[in-house]
């Protein structure tokens, strides 16, 4: 596949022309014929006007239908041959970008929120399509139209061209207003986002709102947010309201001026018919030209945003580089990591094949340690599986969430179902097939937080990974279920040979592990050792958990 993302926008357009030159050749030829046919029509109308005194009984009609057919064929072909390559390019660009995104370390694009990534893949790519499909078509259209129509009208009388200026001016005016108005449309969109957020918050908090009878407060706030958006929209519409009718006015003025010229040069009354026909022909390409400027400006900004993301995806991020420099060798039997813990490089030693638990106060940096370990192992190409504190579920089936891109065999399905049973998720459907086909909804909304987490633990267990990193895996499972799950997991044999690193606040979870690492924000690792020893002596770990021991 050609690399399209590494170019400037001009070079992208050139590549597009080179790759699909035959389409564009057809497109321009068809455009020429369309306008050529169009330019014949005012002359035919004038001819009718000239002959009107002599009686019009036996005028040929076939020619008109032939021209109509010509317009249909050439117009359609020119549009299609512009659109097709643009659409294909858009798809290729999108695929290329998503693949890039999936292959590199998330550290490279961590400053982009998922909303921004969505915006780039979805909307910015669409702007680019609009540039290469729509804007180039209309640019070609106007160039060909002028090239054909101007000589034609000059062939009748070249002084008439000046009468087209009111129409042209009205278009320029309209274009200016439209591009200025973008500010208000942008504002409208931003405010709309705020209103949507407000509704989402009201949705999530509805029980709370109702519980405390704060409905009136929220109704007022909603009106405020919603009206702000509507005002911006109204402002945007105001510019359009005054500028759209300028176009028919311009057309009318051109007609009046043209008529005056025809009269002063005494070109004859049928000349009026001819000139009004030409005004009509100019109207169509000009109509679209007004939007070209907007498309160019937008797509330029869009391509810059795309390029900004792509350039970041291509080089290792600073954090990524540093981690790799500090951990240059493959993590082997002795799993010794160097991680950046609150600006200090700290050694974290994990025993392969065992369970190690990281403990410490909320916000002391446990999760960060886990993530850095994941990055190090992954960048050395070893298979790992990490489960975040509140993990993300894809809006897809349970099966897709467990297996992701993997080929699903019957054997795998059976194993997954066993795990679903162990995790207490089998009750969600009547049988295995139905359960695996169950849709989990947007970010797992149809499952509770605890269920979503357990599903991710299953994904992690089904992954071909020797190292499992679990961030607070059992926090939303009650003590009794936790005990059962871990017992069943150990019985099932799935845990054999796997190294597990987890974080927890809970004594019961800590008791499941062989090793404990106690982290403190200010002092780094303040204690580490075997769980059984630490919990039976007067250790810091013992002290930390003393109030959980009854």
């Amino acid at each position, binding site marked *: 596949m050609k690399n399209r993302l590494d170019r400037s926008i001009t070079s992208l357009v050139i590549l597009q022309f080179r790759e699909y030159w035959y389409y564009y050749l057809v497109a321009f030829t068809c455009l020429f014929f369309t306008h050529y046919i169009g330019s014949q029509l005012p002359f035919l109308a004038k001819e009718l006007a000239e002959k009107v005194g002599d009686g019009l009984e036996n005028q040929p009609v076939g020619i008109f239908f032939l021209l109509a057919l010509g317009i249909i064929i050439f117009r359609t072909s020119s549009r299609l041959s512009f*659109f097709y390559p643009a659409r294909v390019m858009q798809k290729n660009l999108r695929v290329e970008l998503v693949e890039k995104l999936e292959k590199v370390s998330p550290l490279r694009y961590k400053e982009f929120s998922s909303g921004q990534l969505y915006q780039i893949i979805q909307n910015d790519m669409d702007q680019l399509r609009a540039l290469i499909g729509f804007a180039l078509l209309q640019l070609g259209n106007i160039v060909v139209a002028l090239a054909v129509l101007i000589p034609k009208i000059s062939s009748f009388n070249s002084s008439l061209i000046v009468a087209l200026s009111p129409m042209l001016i009205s278009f320029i005016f309209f274009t200016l207003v439209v591009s200025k108005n973008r500010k208000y449309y942008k504002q409208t969109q931003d405010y709309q986002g705020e209103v949507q957020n407000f509704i989402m918050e009201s949705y999530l908090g509805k029980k709370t709102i109702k519980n405390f009878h704060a409905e009136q407060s929220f109704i007022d706030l909603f009106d405020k947010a919603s009206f702000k958006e509507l005002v911006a929209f109204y402002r945007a519409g105001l510019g359009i309201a005054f500028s759209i009718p300028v176009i028919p006015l311009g057309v009318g003025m051109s007609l009046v001026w043209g008529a005056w010229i025809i009269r002063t040069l005494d070109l004859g009354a*049928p000349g009026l018919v001819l000139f009004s026909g030409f005004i009509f022909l100019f109207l169509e390409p000009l109509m679209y030209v007004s939007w070209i400027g907007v498309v160019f400006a937008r797509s330029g900004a869009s391509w810059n945003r795309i390029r900004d993301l792509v350039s970041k995806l291509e080089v290792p991020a600073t954090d990524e580089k540093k981690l790799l420099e500090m951990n240059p060798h493959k993590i082997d039997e002795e799993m010794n990591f160097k991680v950046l813990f609150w600006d200090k490089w700290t050694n974290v030693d994990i025993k392969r094949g065992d369970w190690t638990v990281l403990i410490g106060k909320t916000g002391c940096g446990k999760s960060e340690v886990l993530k850095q370990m994941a990055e190090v192992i992954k960048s050395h190409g070893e298979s790992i599986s990490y489960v975040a504190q509140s993990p993300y579920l894809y809006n897809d089936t349970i099966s897709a969430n467990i297996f992701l891109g993997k080929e699903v065999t019957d054997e795998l399905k059976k194993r997954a179902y066993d795990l679903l049973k162990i995790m207490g998720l089998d009750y969600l459907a009547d049988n295995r097939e139905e359960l695996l086909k169950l849709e989990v909804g947007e970010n797992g909304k149809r499952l509770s937080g605890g269920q979503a987490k357990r599903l991710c633990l299953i994904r992690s267990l089904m992954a071909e990974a020797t190292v499992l990193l679990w961030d607070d895996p059992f*926090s939303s499972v009650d003590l009794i279920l936790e005990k059962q799950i871990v017992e069943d997991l150990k019985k099932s044999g799935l845990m054999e040979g796997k190294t597990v690193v987890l974080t927890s606040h809970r004594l019961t979870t800590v008791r499941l592990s062989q090793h404990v690492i106690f982290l403190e924000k200010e002092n780094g690792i303040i204690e580490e050792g075997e769980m059984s020893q630490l919990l039976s002596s007067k250790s810091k770990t013992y002290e930390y958990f003393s109030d959980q021991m009854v």
Partner: protein
Amino acid sequence: MNTSQIRWFEIFKFKGIGPLMLVILICLVISALLGSQVPGLIAELSRTYDDLDLFKQSLINLSIVFFGVYFNRALYQVGVNKFIQLLVRRVRNFCYEKWLLHYDVQSSKDKKTEAFPQGEVLARIMNDTESFRELITSGTFGIFIDLFFVVSCLVSFLKINLISGGFLMAMEVLASISLIWLSKYMRAIYLSVRNAQGFMSRAVANVVGGVSETHYTDHQMYASKNCEKRFTDFLDKQLVSNVWDASYYSLAESLYPMLLACVVLIFPYSKITEVAVIFAIVDLIQRSIGPIKDISGKIANVQRAITGFQRIGGFINHLEDGFSSDKRSALGDTVLFDELEVNIDHFKYFTTKGQSAFSLKDIHFVGKRGELIGLVGLSGSGKSTLLNILAANIIPDSADIRLKCQDNPSSHSYPGSGPLDVVRYREQIGIVSQESHVFSETLAFNITLSDVIPEDFEKFWSWIEEQIPYFKEWGINSKSQIRPDELSSGQKQLLAAVRSCYLKKTIVLFDEISSGLDGALEAALRKVVLLVQQNSLTIIVAHRVETIIEADKILVLDDGSLVSMGQHAELLQTSQTYAQFLQELSPT
């Protein structure tokens, strides 16, 4: 049917609608008047060609009409804009209010949960009203005034030449009808494109949300595979649709020569002898092609707006069927309840097939303001069901839950005799659970839930800071902006608890977090329970022994029944289930 008519009337009755409608109507009439002048003036221009003064006068007349059209059209656009602004505001507020006031309740007879999930609520309030606004952005409103103009042009041309005018009119109507008819088929194709696009954007939104996380697991390029499938599907649908709409618009553009042909065909009968009439008729054709071309495209927008209205109607109908509260507290009376008596004979969950449903039976107890009642039991013993019934999120059929008052014989019963009793009961309850929501607003807003912060709040807050030193340690004050994503579930619960402490409810229900707290936070939470207890009857589902050791009463649930009731010390002696529960809680 009746009710829905009344409702539409209600929606359209807002301040300022009368004058606006009048302005819009006047603009339409003026447009028709101006339109009727055009063919005559155009013909006049050609007729007076030989007399310079008359020709000048014709040009001036024509210019006046063009300027008139401009001002009329601009005024119309402004009026329509304003109308839509007010209409959308009205409809949105109406929907939001109805939705917010509506209760989602569950009872043993039905399971009416989440009839409108988040996406659906957003769609109704935002997207469906958006379809009204699209009438402006798509220029659909412009088409109305254009039609008035063009139709009156055509009609007045009939005076100049009846036969060719009539024939032209018939042909144009025929062309419009055929284009509209064709557009029906186009719509099916557009719909498939829109669906494919919907799937694509969903796939993209979905993938960008998770790709950074699944990078660290065995993903086998799930995101790329998934997206590529959607991109390809979209491309295919889009290409098919391009073939259709490119030919459709070309067809519309070929109308110019076709209508000219019609004029020529009718020549033998129309007896046109003047250049002026030819000029007028050519001008008429050129003027009317635009609106004919547009009309079929815009009809889809009108239909979309109508569908939007229907969907909103359905939404409101549904909301009006259920329970709704009043905008402000319904409880005008000042009765201060101080006792709760709970009698639940039986409650069973609604089930579809012949599944065995969990049920709750024979639960009877009383509690007083200032008391702490602990609720314990193993997983699945019915704690959360009981809590939901007490919170009136689930409405039991055979039960009587009564709020009483010592100094006053009046009492309030729930479920009582209907929705109003449930709503009134609910106003006495505060709930603090994992579901308690913290808003991304200031801390003061989160506690008072009021846009205008009451004067007494600062005093309350300094008292809280005094009582619970954790807040100082945490480093937030009453003006801090709260970012819910950055809070732990314990911190959220702490804020929710302070909220119910501020609002002084008769009864506060607590669902304690089962884990994930560090020591300082846990102490703060325990302290806040004591503060709440000063004003309220506090009922708490406990996951920690420390919470319930001091309780005035502990209810022990097992398999949906209340098996024992008493204080910690006595239950230790008498209840085996309680002992078992404590055993499970202890981590050894």
